[in-house]
């Protein structure tokens, strides 16, 4: 019934993430992108930036080395068949759903917040730094745990996850208020139900009282982090760096400034990509975080116009289609 459109916009994709390997080619084929960046070091991805540091510091680790063990039911989101990728809704159910939406005139932008923010976007945030003891780290997790030398703990995973959620919050605030707030709410709700389940299942906490205490603590951390990142985002890089240092790096004294710089770059580049996305594109779930080993380059004015044009064409054709399904309707703007 609710199709999350995952089609990624060609132009945006091309411009936002240029893997290092293909950069040389791009350099030859189009000098457009590199005109403003005469120095080659400007183009380093956050991961390369972090790796080039020669500071051999070992952060003091005060964690009690509680490893995250895969629980009994290790699923990214839930066991529900509706959240599995292969599940196809039977045709009659789909038709019935469309009928309900049409007769009750449901606001699909509100309905969509659940599957998009609560499921798809939460999965993105969760997956960035998900790690289990004895299992191979994913590419993004390697950046955080190996390159940035962060401890492999549950609370560190939480810090990385809320940083990514905050990135999405910033974009959600720019949506019309009632929808943006709904998206934020769905994302936060999902985070805490998931953490609660994981604390029981994976961290072997046995009593609800202790889990409640942890959840309250995580809630405080979330509020503090969102506030600190907001302040840093609005003011300057130094404040953002201090916020990252305090939250993400746990205030370690021998912080490697190169790592901090890499993270500031990472955060600002993700926000840049988010800022070039239209409300509609973002709301249907077309966004993906740029992996840390890829470089985000600025769009030129022409590319930006081209991107806007493509988005407008795409959604105009959807909206003007007389056979459009009621569940595909949206009132969100695709022109901003």
């Amino acid at each position, binding site marked *: 019934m609710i199709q999350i459109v995952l089609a990624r916009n060609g132009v945006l994709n091309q411009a936002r993430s240029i893997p290092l390997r293909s950069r040389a080619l791009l350099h030859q084929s189009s000098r457009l992108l590199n005109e403003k960046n005469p120095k080659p070091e400007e183009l380093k991805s956050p991961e390369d930036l972090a790796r*080039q*540091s*020669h*500071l*051999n*510091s*070992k*952060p*003091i680790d*005060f964690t009690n080395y509680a490893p995250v063990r895969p629980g009994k039911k290790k699923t990214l989101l839930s066991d529900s068949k509706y959240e599995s990728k292969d599940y196809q809704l039977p045709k009659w159910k789909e038709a019935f759903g469309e009928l309900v939406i049409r007769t009750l005139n449901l606001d699909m932008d509100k309905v969509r917040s659940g599957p998009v923010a609560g499921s798809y976007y939460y999965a993105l945030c969760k997956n960035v730094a998900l790690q289990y003891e004895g299992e191979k780290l994913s590419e993004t997790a390697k950046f955080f745990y190996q390159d940035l030398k962060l401890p492999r703990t549950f609370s560190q995973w939480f810090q990385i996850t809320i940083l990514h959620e905050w990135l999405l919050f*910033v*974009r959600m*605030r*720019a*949506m*019309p*208020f009632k*929808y*943006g*707030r709904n998206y934020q709410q769905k994302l936060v709700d999902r985070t805490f139900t998931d953490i609660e389940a994981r604390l029981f299942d994976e961290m072997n906490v046995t009593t609800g009282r202790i889990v409640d205490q942890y959840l*309250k*603590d995580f809630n*405080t*951390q979330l509020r*503090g982090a969102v*506030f600190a990142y*907001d*302040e840093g*985002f*609005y*003011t*300057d*890089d*130094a*404040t*953002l*760096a*201090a916020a990252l*240092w*305090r939250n993400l790096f746990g*205030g370690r*004294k*021998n*912080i*490697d*400034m*190169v790592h*901090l*710089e890499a993270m*500031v*770059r990472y955060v*600002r*580049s993700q*926000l*840049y990509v*988010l*800022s070039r996305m239209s409300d509609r594109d973002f709301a249907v779930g077309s966004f993906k975080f740029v992996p840390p080993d890829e470089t*985000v380059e*600025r769009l030129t004015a022409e590319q930006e116009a081209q991107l806007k044009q493509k988005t407008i064409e795409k959604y105009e054709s959807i909206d003007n289609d007389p056979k459009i399904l009621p569940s595909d309707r949206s009132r969100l703007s695709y022109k*901003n």
Partner: protein
Amino acid sequence: MSSSAAVRDSAKQILKIIEKLPDERIKHLVSFKDSQAERFRRVAGLQSTDKNEKKASLEDIKDIITRTSGPLGLQKDLLKKVQSALPQDELTEQSIQEQMRALSNISNNKFKNYYDVGEKLYKPAGNPIYYQRIMDEIQGKQKETFLSALRTVVFGK
């Protein structure tokens, strides 16, 4: 110039950059600026500043505790351990240069300017005064009143 002298020299330059970093608008248990100044002061071989001056006063600590529900789950002994442990840096000429470059990039707002997100995110459509309100509050320009706070809780903005 021998390498250790070069390291000390660079550390002094880093200290200058750190001094220029903006002060915290809100007091935290440990400040980034102060802790890093202390760290590089040792590398530069300078006397550390008066300890009492930088320690949080009783009022500061009370203020922090009333703002948060507790010192964020940190136990007292752990807090002490964190405070007393001072990692030794092994900085070479090359690595301290890198540190300096990174820090100056941060303090020059390089990435905020490079990846400019524009008014779209700084004045978000759903709540255009969101960031301004936060800044006004922490800079003490315009304090939230009970009624405006209530309005935020009820209506969300």
